[in-house]
């Protein structure tokens, strides 16, 4: 881009966000809410926060992220609550740390929620335009240029381009440039990024065919109703129950598998037409049939996508086989004999920016002021995207203010694990958040996201007085209830016996505390409260959390001590521009990896795969050597 070109005054912003998906919207909202003058540029405004795959929010790890976004002051939980048509609590019997919500959303309502939030947000300017160039001077972002020739200036630009960059859709052996669901792709920007010196890679994802609800024999299928208990995602929402939009289960069979096997010669995946790597956790149905030949049947969920829509999403049935095969595959499923496909399934390849090029606050290492969030970083999922969006928005705004960037520790939340994994280890397939990726999982629960993130959100100016006041009241009530349970002693042997009536609950002497009883297998807060009622009945949320905190006390303490042990390493900063070539004794492989990732702390360095504890010890000595050397130089 030519130097010296100047836009109009009204085209000068603090922060520009490119892309209006889940990452882009959260980024734009956070940045403008923190007082930065923000521009959100979207290819098509009617695509704002579109759900091109399954219109569902939550599930293990993803639901945790949505709660964290909410606690920090983001929009996703409210958007999900505002559009839910079906909701369930998952993993109820597997433990508090993995218990989480999954909601089926009306994709139009969800889109409208974000659309309204962005349109009405003071300090945020929403525009439909296509960015073709990023304006970079001397390693710093200056602004962007769009397809119609407008130049917008800003010192911070957030890339949240999803799968649009260099998008290419495959259906059978047919392929064409396209964004998701037939949207126009953005071909020019990828070139501009490469020219700016960013390394760009290729990934692949896909989606399922959508079928017409009127052509499915629903009576033949097993129903999965929305939960009878009221639920909501947001810490400030009102829990509700839902009906009328059940999900249904069907299964693949031998016929389906036969159609798939006989179509593999026309599969873009198996013929090598697709170069990008797809996710292992979300394989296409043809992948499953090939990789697990002994499995006779796979579950398929039929799910509604919106209140006023006849389109049905087929969960677990992602495919990029030719359309004629898709028709036969769908019609082999029970209940779908006469089903009519409205949109075919497809695979989509797209450009991504391998995320080890980013700082742990999502800013590019080589281009100051350029932030990346969402699928461009190699992730998959609306929740993963929104999490990075809010963090990028916050950090762009902090950078405008000239303040220190915000880095979320792995021990604080899933968001921290997500970003740390991306920038430290990178990813070779679309990255999906999983609870098993978190080493401090028992601390990072769905129920305590507010404790972990709201103080931060408040400090950043993302939580208003009203929401803060509600949390304070809740936290006080929780503290009081835990204290009460720990101090209340039960003396009536019969009451104790009633509480400990379960087969594994054991026995207890009179004088035992309510908390000690609550720790026993099978004992619930309600059972204890019957014998030792509280003065004032606490909210359901407070009750549940008190129970979790007490039951998990020992395990929580154990993980806290693990966090403490790692703390020192997380605090030792690695100075900028350190020359790994000059550290004696580092193994060559470690030297290369450290130089490529350029970690910020010893803790981060230790998580790079292949870097050994000995390398970290050497690095620490070298840092101290440098520090003393500089100190001596100053003295002289």
């Amino acid at each position, binding site marked *: 881009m030519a130097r010296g070109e100047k836009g109009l005054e009204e085209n000068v912003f603090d922060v520009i966000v490119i892309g209006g998906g889940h990452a882009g919207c959260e980024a734009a909202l956070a940045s403008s809410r923190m007082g930065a003058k923000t521009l959100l540029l979207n290819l098509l405004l009617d695509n704002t926060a579109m759900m091109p795959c399954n219109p569902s929010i939550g599930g293990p790890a993803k639901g945790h992220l949505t709660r964290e976004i909410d606690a920090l002051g983001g929009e996703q939980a409210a958007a999900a609550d505002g559009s839910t048509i079906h909701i369930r609590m998952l993993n109820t019997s597997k433990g508090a740390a993995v218990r989480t919500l999954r909601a089926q959303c009306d994709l139009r309502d969800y889109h409208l929620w974000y659309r309204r939030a962005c349109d009405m947000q003071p300090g945020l300017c929403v525009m439909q335009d296509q960015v073709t160039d990023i304006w970079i001077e001397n390693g710093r972002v200056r602004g962007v240029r769009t397809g119609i020739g407008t130049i917008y200036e800003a010192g911070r630009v957030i890339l949240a381009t999803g799968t649009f960059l260099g998008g290419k859709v495959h259906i059978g052996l047919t392929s064409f440039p396209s964004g998701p669901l037939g949207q126009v792709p953005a071909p020019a920007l990828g070139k501009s990024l490469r020219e700016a010196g960013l390394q760009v890679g290729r990934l692949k994802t896909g989606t399922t065919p959508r079928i017409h609800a009127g052509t499915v024999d629903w009576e033949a299928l097993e129903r999965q109703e929305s939960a009878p208990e009221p639920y909501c995602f947001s810490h400030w929402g009102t829990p509700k129950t839902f009906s009328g939009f059940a999900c249904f289960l069907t299964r693949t069979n031998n016929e389906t598998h036969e159609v798939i096997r006989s179509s593999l010669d026309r599969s873009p995946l198996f013929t090598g037409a697709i170069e990008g790597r797809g996710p292992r956790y979300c394989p296409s149905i043809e992948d499953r049939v090939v990789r697990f030949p002994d499995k006779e049947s796979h*579950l398929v969920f039929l799910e509604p996508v919106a209140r006023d829509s006849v389109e049905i999403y087929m969960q677990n049935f992602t495919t990029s086989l030719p359309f004629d095969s898709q028709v036969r595959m769908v019609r082999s499923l029970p209940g779908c004999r006469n089903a009519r496909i409205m949109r075919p399934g497809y695979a989509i390849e797209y450009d991504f920016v391998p995320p080890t090029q980013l700082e742990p606050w999502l800013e590019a290492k080589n281009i100051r002021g350029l932030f990346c969030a969402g699928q461009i970083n190699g992730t998959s999922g609306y929740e993963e995207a929104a999490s990075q969006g809010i963090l990028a928005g916050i950090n762009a705004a902090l950078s405008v203010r000239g303040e220190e960037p915000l880095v979320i520790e792995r021990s604080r939340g899933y968001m921290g694990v997500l970003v740390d994994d991306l920038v430290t280890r990178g990813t070779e397939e679309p990255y999906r958040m999983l609870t098993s990726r978190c080493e401090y999982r028992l601390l990072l629960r769905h129920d305590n996201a507010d404790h972990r993130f709201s103080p931060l959100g408040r400090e950043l100016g993302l939580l208003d007085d009203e929401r803060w006041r509600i949390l304070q009241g809740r936290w006080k009530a929780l503290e009081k209830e835990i204290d009460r349970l720990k101090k209340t002693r039960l003396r009536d042997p019969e009451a104790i016996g009633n509480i400990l009536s379960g087969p594994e609950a054991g026995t207890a002497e009179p004088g035992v505390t309510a908390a000690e009883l609550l720790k026993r297998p099978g004992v619930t807060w309600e059972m204890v409260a019957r014998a030792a009622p509280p003065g004032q009945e606490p909210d359901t949320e407070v009750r549940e959390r008190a129970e979790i905190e007490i039951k998990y006390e020992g395990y929580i303490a154990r993980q806290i001590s693990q966090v403490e042990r790692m703390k020192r390493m997380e605090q030792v900063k690695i100075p900028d521009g350190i020359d790994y070539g000059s550290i004696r004794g580092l193994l060559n492989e470690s030297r290369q990896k450290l130089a490529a990732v350029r970690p910020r702390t010893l803790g981060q360095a230790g998580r790079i795969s292949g870097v050994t504890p*000995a390398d970290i010890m050497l690095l620490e000595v070298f840092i101290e050597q440098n520090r003393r050397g500089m100190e001596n130089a100053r003295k002289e």
Partner: protein
Amino acid sequence: MEGIIAAISTAWGESGIAIVRLSGDGCRDLVNGIFRGRTDLSSTPPRFMRHGYIVDEKGMELDEVLAVWFKGPFSYTGEEAAEIQCHGGTVAARKCLDLCLSLGARMACPGEFTQRAFLNGRLDLIQAESVLGIIRSRSDRSLQAAAKCLRGSLSTKVAEIHEEMLELSAFGEASLDHPDEDIPPLDPRSMGERLSGISEMIRLLLSSARSGRFLREGIKVALSGKPNVGKSSLMNAFLQESRSIVTSMPGTTRDVIEEVISHKGVPLRLVDTAGLRAPRDEAEEEGVKRALDAIRESDIRVWVIDGSLPLSEEDREIAKTLMDPCCVVAINKSDLPLVVSERSVEDILPGTPVRVISAFCGQGIEELKDQIVLAVAGRTSLDEDLNTTERQVEELGKAMDLTISAMDALSSGAGLDAVLEVIREARECISRILGISTDESLMESVFSNFCIGK
């Protein structure tokens, strides 16, 4: 610095004194907890040696010791430090170290005492380079020692334990992360049974490790050379008694014979290998294969040459295979007229020490032993071998405790999430022994075992 670290800071030896060294805040009181002397360490001024006994948790006296503590910053590491000098040698020192670990100390990483000394300002900038060198060489030595221990049966057993833990974790994690999938439910009873199976596997391994059956240490010395040059006679000369079958028929030693002797407090594991030559029959072929394995695993090779016969092409071929990492040459049969000169051997293996001996008369044997110890000890930090073994035992012990905790968690009705966290910790201990990264192997296992969608 964080935590109390401990290690044995003397090399092997059945005789003499072995020292357990500790560093970190609170190590004086930790040592005092297992020390019984006329005066408590806590009421002893720093740098005063106290005589007493190390007692275990049951009050049993383990060893007679001298104990001393240093107040930070006036210690080698610049922080509170302590030393226990065990009179019972290495075995007593290991028991003493075990006690310290059970009281909350952890095994020091290779070079960690030196690293702390530097970070705490006890070593100056000029010494920084050598600090880096020490950390590197000790880590390398430790890796070599670990690899040596991991060959053969130990490795198979540890890998089996790891595999079993991984499978159990993958099963559990898959059901937590993918609740709507076709994953068969994990019932607590079968999970408990598998955990108890794992803990039994670790227990067996630990008991044999503690009795030293395969985590044996010492300098492994391979006696090698052509048939009939007198390797077995040399072995006997070392042992001063007849163990191997010694005849003048070439190829008599078909098996690998191993004996441990102690020279100046350093245990030497002597391995008498079959003569290296093209085998004539199946039994001999097996013998040669074992000999080559033994040579590969050894710390040092003694190339035995018959000095009464001229060097052949075969000799030169053998020499090449023995050079790396470390070799000593013994020109044998000095009781006969020698035709091989030290000079001609040095031409083949430049820089390699050469000794002229007679295994038959016992001449030059002591000097050869000296040379072996010198050649190995000059290159490496021998205490690292000992500490590596200790580290492996420590990890096995922790894995054992954690597996039992996981069983307790399961039977006390804790959620699958909590149980799996404890299993993860246990698995990490085992992964560290094997030197593999935990997170990727778990993901691999989940995705290869389960067909997972959403």
